[in-house]
């Protein structure tokens, strides 16, 4: 089946089984390896992408569901100012250890700050509760998100 959608700002089309996982289509057909598979069951968030601006675990989404929608992966974010602020903040706060879960946390942070530029700690915890990390103890990730909120203050409000 032909499925058209917008991927990282560009119109794309795939001819595939609509039941295939969006995660596999992104990795295998488009080579977007920033989308990681940690569990395949919607728990770890390493495969998080934005669908029409909302954070979603791509391992749980059949590709047929994104027909006509806008999908953004970490690769689509990385040239934006917002991304630069998040990633610099993550680096400074020690939010990155092995880095396998990091693209997912960056996506979740982006989605949070776009919606809520000045989050309280509780908002942060809620927003990234769909992502698992085994290396840090999370508090250094919370620090990274707080730093990004502060540093990108004007950016998020636009």
């Amino acid at each position, binding site marked *: 089946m032909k499925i058209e959608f917008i991927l990282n700002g560009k119109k794309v089309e795939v001819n595939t089984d609509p039941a295939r996982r969006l995660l596999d289509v992104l990795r295998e057909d488009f080579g977007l*390896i920033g989308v990681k*598979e940690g569990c395949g069951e919607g728990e770890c968030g390493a495969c998080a992408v934005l669908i029409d601006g909302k954070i979603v675990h791509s391992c749980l989404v059949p590709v047929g569901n994104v027909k006509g929608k806008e999908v953004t992966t970490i690769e689509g974010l990385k040239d934006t100012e917002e991304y630069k602020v998040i*990633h610099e903040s993550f680096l400074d706060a020690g939010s990155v250890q*092995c880095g396998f879960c990091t693209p997912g946390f960056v996506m979740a942070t982006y989605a949070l700050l776009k919606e809520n530029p000045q989050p309280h700690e509780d908002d942060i915890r809620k927003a990234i*509760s769909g992502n*698992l990390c085994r290396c840090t103890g*999370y508090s250094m990730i919370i620090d990274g998100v707080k730093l990004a909120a502060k540093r990108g203050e004007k950016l998020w409000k636009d």
Partner: protein
Amino acid sequence: MENREFNVVGKSIKKIDALALATGEVKFTADIEMPGMLHIAFLYSPHPHAEIVDIDTEEAKNIPGVVLVLTYRDVPDTLHTTAGQGYPEPSPYDTRILDKRVRFVGDRVAIVAAETKEIAEEALKKIKVKYRELPYNLDPEKAEESEQIPPEDAYHLLPTVYEPSKNLAASVELSFGDVEKGFSDADFVLEERFEVQYANHCAIEPHAAVAFYDERGRLNIISTTQVPFHVRRIVSRVLGIPLKNLRVIKPRIGGGFGGKQEVFLEQVVALVTYMTKRPSKVVFSRKEVFVSSRTRHPMITWYKVGAKRDTGEITSLYLKALMNAGAYGPHALTVMANAGSKVLPLFNKIKNLKFEGFSVYTNLPVGGAYRGYGATQGYFGYNVMLDMIAEKLGIDTLEFFKKWHIKKGETSPIFEELGEGKEGVSQIIRSCGLSECIEKGAKAIGWYEKRRKRIKNGDKVRGVGAAILMQGSGIPKIDMGAAYMKMNEDGSFNLHIGATDIGTGSDTILAQIAAEEIGTSVDKIIVYSSDTDFTPFDVGAYASSTTYISGGAVLKCAKKIRKEILKVAQEMLNVPEDALYIENGTVYTRDGQQKVSFQDIVIYSLYTKNQHQIQAVASHIGLESPPPFMAQFAEIEVDIRIGRIEVIKFVSAVDCGKPINPVLVEGQVEGATVNGIGYALWEDYVFDEKGRVKNASFWDYKIPSIRDIPEIEVIICETYEPTGPHGAKSVAEIGINGPIPAIANAVYDAIGIRLTKTPFTPERVLKAIKSQGIKL
């Protein structure tokens, strides 16, 4: 080595690989795709113990796209251990790639390689296996009289106790003084049984491996490994492929925690590629990681301790440990031995002591290395017993800790008696900040305001508890790491190390150690690590060794480079060597008259006169294993109505010598602490009556998420370890050991209940409240 002012060391330099990691551009093993690549899937045993009577692969082989179906009849039958340890490995040779007998639900029965993963998985369903079920045993306390689990021809390379017919994978005994006399001299004797459970490392990146032939016909392996050099050695032996024809590369690794110190996928991809001459790949599912990779070894410990009432002296200590190795024995000896060797030297003034440890086979998932490595299992009972003694003596636990813990300048006979697979190495403690850790940690948790206060809020009661710990820094006189450096025309340096960064940031701290010694900045150091063709040997990332051992090699190497630089500068400036000093990439004369930059020095050495490459290589072996120390504190609240424990605040105060990179130290300690809290409260394997794992997913096996964790405070109590690179000791493992006893002691502080079995689920807490009676 002496403590001094540092320029690069002690600074929180950003991880040198962090940028690419955050963008997702870095390739992890599973990201590697190659034309013609085969995908591998495994058929697993549905029985806890069975013999394969017949296995029919015809139908599977006929599926279009299936290239290879392998059973025990088709693969080399070399006995080996999957434990990625030094040679000779201190683990029994009891494993084959595939065997006629399967030993747990999840043991391998067959291997399929196909054009796609989907086809490979389809083919698994078409393999017909006839099993003869055998008696099985899931209880480590019944191992001796149960049906033999390991192969009849299993053996051990070391002269150690190994009795496969009794399902005994290992045993050790250590004793000094006279424990019986010590108990009779005591004013009181306390005894307790403790038990810790199965757990999984849960690195977010699942295990994966890739193999391919390069243009020179050499077999390359890329895998999620902590031990590339051990992988090369083990795969070479198991498959009979000459070592020179193998190259093992470690790409970026998504966390290890010991789970990737195990060599069980590399021989499979190598074999498939060897047989088909095509690239091959295997990526574990999360379920496979839980069931068929490796786990934390469950352990039962019995402590018996006698003490004097007036002085508080412990007159005698007896520890018996029974470890469940699971169906195979990787690390069966060493993890169990560490429950004694990493724990018992902490109170080093005990004159009568006995430790007996046993590792036994059961028909359950296979244990392996896991952060903490036996110390986690041993420290639970140890710290609870200390808390019990202090209470009996009527003194504050922290005062008791401070009075008796090992101090700088002291030793313990255990260091020499008990090592990793053989006797240990005697050592004197040259740095110890434990008392400071106890004091600062106590202040941070509010110990003196909260202890014994039992503050109530409805059904909830608060308490505080503490634990003290030590670990090691590498395995002394066994672990070796090496480094190579060369200098380039722009004054930059290539640093090649066998050391294995699995997400810890070791590439970064090793660059810091080099930059500090040479007198340059970290951005001038180009790190390349963990490639058996292009980096020198290193045992790999385990036993908290990288900073101390590999760092020692990097420091030696950098010292040589520095000397070389000064030699050339001396020739260029025509002054004696001691007239020179280096600062930030430039050599100056002490009189301030002349200077020459690193660039000029290299240009001179490569093109001008006495041309040569400024380069150096160095190896380092730890002659000692200086322990890092830690004090951990939990403030908890128990809901006595529903039995739920909530950790309100947790403090980890650590002495890791000189912290090379404080933010990375904090990250290690915090990560280990949270992993330890998860192990203390929730993480557990649920088995059915056949030993089938019923919760092999992140939905059912809960690791801490961001909403589960309390406020965590990490305190670095800096000391200076004279044998360590720039004063450093290790830090990676120790933080996982204390949450269980600190929480258990805090629960006692709150409600007077002693918890002796983990995880401390509401169900267990309620049961304990019922059986012990609540004392408020």
